[in-house]
Every structure is written in structure tokens, then in C-alpha cells.
């Protein structure tokens, strides 16, 4: 059943190989001594039903399984395609070995970088049509191992096909760019959730642009930063690079100029992230929070009639470890901050907030003064800046 839905790769694969016939191929995909165990299906029953045919084990319900009949000759066709694809993959792995040996003997950094790029591509090509990999990616999210180039490629494609487009639309339409930073070349996927929430509508990942009540953001968020590019890491695929995360509100009312200022609400720096360890969650904050935080979390608490405000979360890649002692929260200039510390913006996220009945209680919790109240009709007084 899942063979049909697996992904474009598997379908394309089966079509392209129907012409070819197999001859004594090497069994690369069944050999697990040199390959990661995340590249094969963990559940023995499902694996068996995949290769030996019969009723698919992916259907748990007995009645539904009994009612399912596979298409005619699917097992034969599948086996034919599988053998051919495994043979092609064997060639790719031969190329991988060759590139690896070249890499060890090479000393020039530029050529080395090129070789690494080629190696990465070969590793992706060798596994991209493996039905076990495609099954894991589609159905077993626990087995998605981001240290494997093929899973990274699949994750990247999935992100580009939807979530990235949504994010960029929200960033532009809500004028996060250019109100905070000039523009963004997205390199990492940034996901945000507030795990302290006990209501289901606020406990999952936030879609960019959502308007959230104050109680839903009253404790620090969990931030997941998925790295796709190979330049993010230097030595092997698991080494980490350092990141800075900044949360700003560019809509803080400034009555002296009859305009807005930017306020800093959260600042983390020197956060080591890698392909596999990519979350800044409560556990990490509990152990290393003090070390990372240069500006502790204060939720955005809009005042009455101060209109809807944007919480802009920016993720920067650092060039070197930073020593940010403390930062002035009021009139925070994020452009200057990025320029001074030589930071490259690689990802962003945005949600919105407005005054609600939970704001005052949270202001008290955080020992903040009571919020101002504005008249609900907008006046025509000119801009004073």
C-alpha cells in the first residue's frame, strides 16, 4: 500500500528500470556492516512483508488487512526494480570509496571541499531510491537520522516544497523583512513551539504568523534548527557549529516620536548545533541555559489597543565564539547587533501577539509595571521622529 504513496523517487525509479534486466548484482542495500542501521526498516515484520510480498504489514487492523489485495504482479515488478536499483547503488558506493580514498590523500582545502561535495552527492544518490529509506522517511520519523546525507536531502526537499514557502510569505507580508533585517537567505529550518502549554491548540509547532495569547508564550520556547547544508559542519557530519538566536519585537510603541522601537526579548549565543543535536529545548536550557543566555526570556506583552505586534525570531550563524556580556533591551538595533558580531542570518520565524486578558497576570509574574492603555481610535497626530 505504501509503495504507491512512498514518494516521487520510488515511482520514478520503478518506471526507469522497467526496461533493464538484472545480472548478478551486489546486495548493497541488505548489507549493514558498513552502512548505518537507520537506512533499513527496524520492524522485522514490515521488512519481511516488503521483500516477500503478501498482505502488507503496515495495515494493523486485521479486517482491513484481509480486505486488501495488491495489484497484479506487483511483487515481481518490485523485485525487478529493486535489483536494478541496488545494482546502480553498488556503482555509487564504489564511487564513494574512490572519493574517500582521494580525500585522505588530498591536502589542498579547495579541492578537498569539492571532493566532499561530490562525496555527499554520491552518498545521496546511492540511497535515494532505497525503498527502506523511503519507508522510514515517510512513516517512521524516529528513524530519520539527520547525520545521513540521504535523509538530509529528503528533509530539505520536504521543507522546500511547503514550509519554506509559507515562512517566506509570512516574513514578507508581515514586513519582518525589511523592518528587522534587510532580507533572508534561508539555510536552516527554524521550528518553534512552547512546550509548557497544556492546551492542545498551543502545544504543537507554531505556523509562522499565528496570533498567540500571552499565556501561551509565558515561558521560553523550544527552538528546532534543522541544518541542511554541508558547510554548516567542518570535520565530520556530527561536529557542531555555533549559533545565535535573538527574539525581537519591532512594534514597541514609542510615544516621544509617535512611532515604534525594537525591543529585545530573548537572546542566546554560542549554542552548539549539529545535524543530529538540533534542538534548544527545556532540557538543554535546564543544564546549559545560563551559559547560552545573554538576555533572559521575557514574553512579549502588548498593551491595550497597542495593536497586533510581531515576535521576530532570528537565527544567526556565528563565525567565531562570541562574548556578549549583556544587551540593552530597549531600542535594540538588530542590524547593528548582527554587523558588530559578524553574524550571518540563516533562518527566521515569526508569530504575533495582541493584548488579551492574560497579559496583566503575566506582567505581574515577571514583575513588570502595569501596561499603558491607549485610546482605541487612531489619531491624526503627525510622526515626530
Amino acid at each position, binding site marked *: 500500500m505504501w509503495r504507491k504513496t512512498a514518494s516521487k523517487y520510488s515511482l520514478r525509479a520503478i518506471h526507469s528500470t522497467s526496461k533493464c534486466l538484472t545480472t548478478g548484482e551486489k546486495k548493497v542495500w541488505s548489507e549493514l556492516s558498513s552502512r548505518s542501521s537507520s537506512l533499513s526498516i527496524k520492524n522485522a515484520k514490515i521488512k519481511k512483508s516488503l521483500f516477500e510480498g503478501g498482505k502488507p504489514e503496515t495495515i494493523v487492523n486485521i479486517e482491513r488487512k484481509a480486505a486488501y489485495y495488491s495489484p497484479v504482479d506487483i511483487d515481481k515488478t518490485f523485485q525487478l526494480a529493486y535489483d536494478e536499483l541496488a545494482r546502480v547503488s553498488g556503482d555509487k558506493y564504489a564511487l564513494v570509496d574512490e572519493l574517500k580514498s582521494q580525500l585522505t590523500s588530498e591536502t589542498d582545502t579547495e579541492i578537498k571541499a569539492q571532493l566532499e561535495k561530490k562525496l555527499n552527492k554520491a552518498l545521496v544518490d546511492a540511497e535515494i531510491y532505497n525503498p527502506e529509506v523511503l519507508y522510514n522517511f515517510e512513516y517512521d520519523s524516529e528513524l530519520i537520522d539527520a547525520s545521513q546525507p540521504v535523509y538530509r536531502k529528503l528533509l530539505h526537499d520536504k521543507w522546500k516544497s511547503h514550509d519554506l514557502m509559507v515562512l517566506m510569505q509570512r516574513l514578507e507580508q508581515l514586513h519582518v523583512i525589511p523592518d528587522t533585517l*534587510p532580507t533572508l537567505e534561508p539555510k536552516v529550518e527554524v521550528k518553534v513551539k512552547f*512546550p509548557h502549554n*497544556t492546551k492542545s491548540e498551543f502545544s504543537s509547532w507554531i505556523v509562522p504568523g499565528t496570533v498567540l495569547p500571552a499565556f501561551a508564550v509565558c515561558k521560553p520556547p523550544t527552538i528546532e534548527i534543522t541544518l541542511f547544508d554541508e558547510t554548516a559542519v567542518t570535520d565530520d557530519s556530527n561536529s557542531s557549529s555555533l549559533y545565535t538566536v535573538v527574539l525581537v519585537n519591532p512594534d514597541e510603541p514609542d*510615544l516621544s516620536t509617535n512611532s515604534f522601537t525594537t525591543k529585545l526579548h530573548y537572546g542566546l549565543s554560542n549554542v552548539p548545533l549539529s545535524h543530529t543535536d538540533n534542538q534548544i529545548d527545556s532540557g538543554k536550557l535546564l543544564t546549559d541555559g545560563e551559559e547560552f543566555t545573554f538576555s533572559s526570556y521575557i514574553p512579549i506583552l502588548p498593551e491595550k489597543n497597542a495593536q497586533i505586534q510581531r515576535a521576530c525570531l532570528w537565527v544567526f550563524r556565528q563565525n567565531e565564539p562570541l562574548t556578549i556580556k549583556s544587551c540593552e533591551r530597549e531600542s535594540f538595533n538588530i542590524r547593528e547587533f548582527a554587523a558588530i558580531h559578524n553574524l550571518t542570518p540563516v533562518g527566521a520565524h515569526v508569530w504575533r501577539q495582541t493584548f488579551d486578558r492574560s497579559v496583566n497576570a503575566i506582567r505581574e509574574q515577571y514583575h513588570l509595571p502595569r501596561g499603558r492603555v491607549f*485610546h482605541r481610535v487612531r489619531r491624526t497626530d503627525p510622526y515626530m521622529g
Partner: protein
Amino acid sequence: MSFYSSVSELLRPVTQFKFSSLVNVSQVRNATKRVSGSRTNKNDSAGRRLGPKAYENTFVKPGQIIMRQRGTKIHPGENVGIGIDHTIYALEPGYVKFYYNPFHPYRKYVGISLKKDLDLPTPHFEPRTRRFGYVELTGLDATKEETRMSRKEFLATPKLKALQEEESAFAHKTIEYFKEQLSEYKDTVEDENMGAERLFKIYQLVTVGQPLEQAQIQATFDYLWDLKLAHNGADISTQREKYLNFVEKFDNTVSVDFSNLQDAKLFAYITPQARSAKKQEITNKLETSYSNKVLKASEKSEVMNLIKSPGIFSQKEQTDLTDTFLPKVLPLDVPGSIIEDVDTKKPPKGVVITRVYDAETKTLKVVGRPKEVYSN
């Protein structure tokens, strides 16, 4: 044209007439053309007074008209709006600027700049200049405005209040229940209140889909965060240490079976290794003695108890196991689940008459099935 040349034009015919043979013939022109104008020439109207109403660098107020036009001779730019008849009007107080936009090089634009010396268009990568425009209220006006509700909020208030009360009542009840159960572990758990509250928080987090381990960390984090806020920046390291010690001891003493959230039961903590071993043991037992046969009611309850043994299987695993070992209807190939020779008119007690599809003869067959085949 000079006076001489214009007059000479008139004079020339007179000199010609002197030598002409037609001197005495006078021309007669009859009225062959209709008078009183024509149908088509009457459609003129008064001017529509189109054109700019405010010029470059004029200060305008919101709503003031900047341009009246037919079609968009000039396009609306920053801080202006356009009406149904393409009238351009100001949306912000500021200075009128006519400009070209590099993204549409063949259009003229008009916009409002909030400052006289700021030119339009605003550079593409620069932040926008924005006006806040709301006036701060003080005293009684402020409290009145703050408590003011929209109609929607006002109508929803009683419902929200009832919901909140229900929630707090549930929380109170559950915490009391946990406290009661914790009294069994009095030797190791010193602070029952703290323990019960922690369990309730974990219970809530697991309910919204967090794994147990993560929920435990989150509960700790939330407690310490609240503690930090309550002490307003004062040193809390001793309390922090104390709570972390409590948590370690508590989590290794008692655990809650969150797979069945309706009646969550406390049980002594088991290590993950022991848990997976137990899992294997139960699954093996189910496979060997309860699969592929018609189960009696007592056996069914035994299977159910095994599946629901506290703290072993997650909720998803439990549903999967129930689907496998206690399906709604047993498959036909299970031995003893079909009774072929049966009086369909008068079935014996405990037999249900049903129709099944026979794949060999491609027909429907009427057979009897024992009542135990069905889960209910």
C-alpha cells in the same frame, strides 16, 4: 502674418476681376445644408475638475484628496489609498511626494512621506518609517478602556468562566486523587503536595502528546522557572538543588500509567530495560496462548489485563495489540470460528448467523459463527 500680406490676399481677386469676362455674373448660393446643428455635436459637458489637488511637499491630513483622475494616470504609492473612481487620498499625515518606482519603471506614483526630507520610494531593504498614532489614556479613562470588551468577548465570558471553573475543579480533584495514592509511598516521598502537583503537570503534558521523559523534564523546568520569577532575580540555587534532588528521588520511586488517561494509576517505577523485557514477555505470552483461536469471555479479559498492565505499553501500542488480539470480528481462517452445518432458521444458542464470501465458488454462503468471534 503681417498686415500687408493679409490685405493683399483680399485685394488680389479685385485686380483679377478687372480683366475677367465673367465680371457681371454674380454667384448665388442656395441653402442646401440643414441648419440648427446636428445630433452628434451636442455631447459636451462641463469639466470634471480633474488633476492634482495637492502638490509636491504639501502637508496633507489623512483622508485628504491628492489626485482626481480617470484611470490611474498616477498610481497610489506609500501611505495613500485609491478610491473606486481612482481618486488618490492620504492615509497618513505627511508630505506629498511624486516619484517613480524602480519595480514599475513606466508608472508615476504619488505617496506620503512622514517626514519632509525623506524621499520616496523608501529604499527596498531599509526599514519602513511608521507612525504609531494612538494616544495614551490615564486615570479612570484608562481603567474603563482596559476593561472594555468587544461584543464577542462579552458574550463568551460566561462560557469561558464556566470552562475555567470546570478545569480548576478537575485539577483539584486529580491532585487530591494523586495525593491519596501517593500516601502508599510515604517512606520515600516526603512532600506529597509537591509530588501530586508534579504528577498532575506531567499528566497534562502527556495528554497533549509529549513523551513521558520530555514531560518530566518540562515539569521540572516550569517549576524552576516559576521559582526564579517568584524570587525576582534573587539567588535560588539552594531551592533549585533541593527540588532537583526531590525530582530525582520521586521519579525513581513512583510512576503513573498515562496510557489510560481516564483512570491513571500509580505504580512503582520500573527501569526502561525492565520495561522492554516485560513488554517482550507479555507479547510472547499473547502470541503463544491467545492468538489464532476463539477466545472465551474470561480469556478475553485476561488478554485485556495483559495489554493494560500498568506502565508497560504506550497508548498506541495498546490499540495495536487490541486490534491484533481482540479484533472486532475474528478472521474466517481462525479454526473453530465458522460452524457450517447450522439451522439458519433456528440457530442454537450462542451462534450468530452471518453471510460470508466464499472465494473458491465466488458465492455468498450463509454460516453460523460462535458469539465469541465478536468482541462485543
